[in-house]
């Protein structure tokens, strides 16, 4: 086999591996979008049940009316879940879809903190969500999520600090301390994302080689079969 032929064969395998890799990544993103669509629907139901369980009514003596928390769970919950679900089905695999999902997921943390009356335990939702988002194996998604947390904490810390930090007069840089722990988690998740992508590429390169080998064998056997007949 000449050098030119070998080079062409190698190039074909590289291109095949790249196509397989791109298709795998897209399949992963589409599947993650669908997974998050289900999570968004689940969170919507959970938020509503939470609001209906914790404080369904606002009272004035013996009179009662629907608690605005229920309306918030319904309205804000629909907003936060509606757009990601729509994008997951109308534009699955689109880069904007996963970033919108990251934004909505982090804002779900904020809504749940509101609905649970600021319970510190609810803040764990942030870290769970970052872990889920890492499933995209696309580190800029984690960056978007981190930015949302930082901006949300910064703004809320300015206008209503005790709702986040549990103290009434935090230092102005307090949001950085909270953001640090998010960055701490995100930096490790980013490493895992990049490693996952590398493994995915290696897998697809091997797949492409095997495919090329199988095709070559099939061509050889076809020639032999034709010659025999």
């Amino acid at each position, binding site marked *: 086999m000449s050098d030119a032929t070998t080079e062409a064969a190698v190039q074909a395998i590289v291109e095949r591996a790249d196509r397989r890799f791109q298709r795998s990544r897209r399949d992963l993103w589409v599947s993650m979008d669908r997974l998050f669509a289900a999570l968004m629907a689940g969170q919507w139901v959970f938020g509503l049940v939470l609001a209906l369980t914790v404080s369904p009514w*606002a009272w004035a003596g013996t009179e009662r009316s629907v608690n605005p928390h229920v309306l918030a769970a319904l309205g804000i919950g629909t907003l936060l879940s509606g757009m990601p679900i729509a994008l997951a089905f109308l534009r699955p695999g689109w880069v904007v879809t996963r970033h919108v999902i990251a934004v909505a997921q982090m804002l779900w943390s904020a809504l749940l903190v509101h609905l649970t009356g600021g319970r510190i335990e609810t803040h764990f939702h942030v870290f769970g969500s970052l872990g889920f988002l890492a499933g995209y194996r696309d580190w800029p998604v984690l960056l978007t999520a981190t930015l949302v947390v930082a901006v949300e904490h910064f703004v809320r810390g300015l206008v209503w600090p*005790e709702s986040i930090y549990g103290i009434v007069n935090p230092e102005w840089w307090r949001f950085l301390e909270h953001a640090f722990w998010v960055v701490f988690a995100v930096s490790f998740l980013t490493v895992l994302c990049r490693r996952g992508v590398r493994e995915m590429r290696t897998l697809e390169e091997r797949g492409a080689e095997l495919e090329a080998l199988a095709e070559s064998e099939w061509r050889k056997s076809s020639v032999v079969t034709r010659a025999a007949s």
Partner: protein
Amino acid sequence: MPDVPDAAESTRGNRLAAAALVVWAVAVVAAFGMLGRYKATAATQVPDGPPLVWPEESALPRTPGRPTLVLFVHPHCGCTQATVTELGRLLGRVRGPLDARVAVVRPEGVPDGWDETALVGRAESIPGVAVFRDAGGAEAARFAGNASGFTVVYGADGRRLFAGGLTSARGHEGESFGGRRIVSLLETGVADRGDAPTFGCALASTAAAGEEGTE
């Protein structure tokens, strides 16, 4: 239909998606703003406030020589769950003597068991807290309490030290100006103020109160 949309269709789709995302972002920010505003809206305080000295005609017990805290609650107010949690934390922070009372407002004409709620059970479970029923809201009216979560603290000498709420927002746990001021007043005798906003359901119905309720 082709699998891959043509360039014009794709651009149109992207513009539509971008417009929808902008509207979505504005709606989300506005909705969170409204929620924050609701949570930060305090009950209107009664102009004259609670009596400056413990009213002798009050049916609530007070031991002379010991500070007394009274928290008024609406037994069904969801926001007051956070206040009861903060009451428990507050009692853990106060080192000196403090008699804590929770007055559960029971409006006229409600059926038996109306005021037997999980919230009242939680208040009863806090060590050192005595829970009383406030029939018709007479004690709440005497102490100028109009919203669930309203708290008054009287010093050992019977003088009023504090009147207001124990949470930083409606139904939100965490440190609050009210809690800090009570601890400071009881331990050092001074604080920057002797009040704090109260966040909670109206203790009286709007008709009975003769004015707009707090919810």
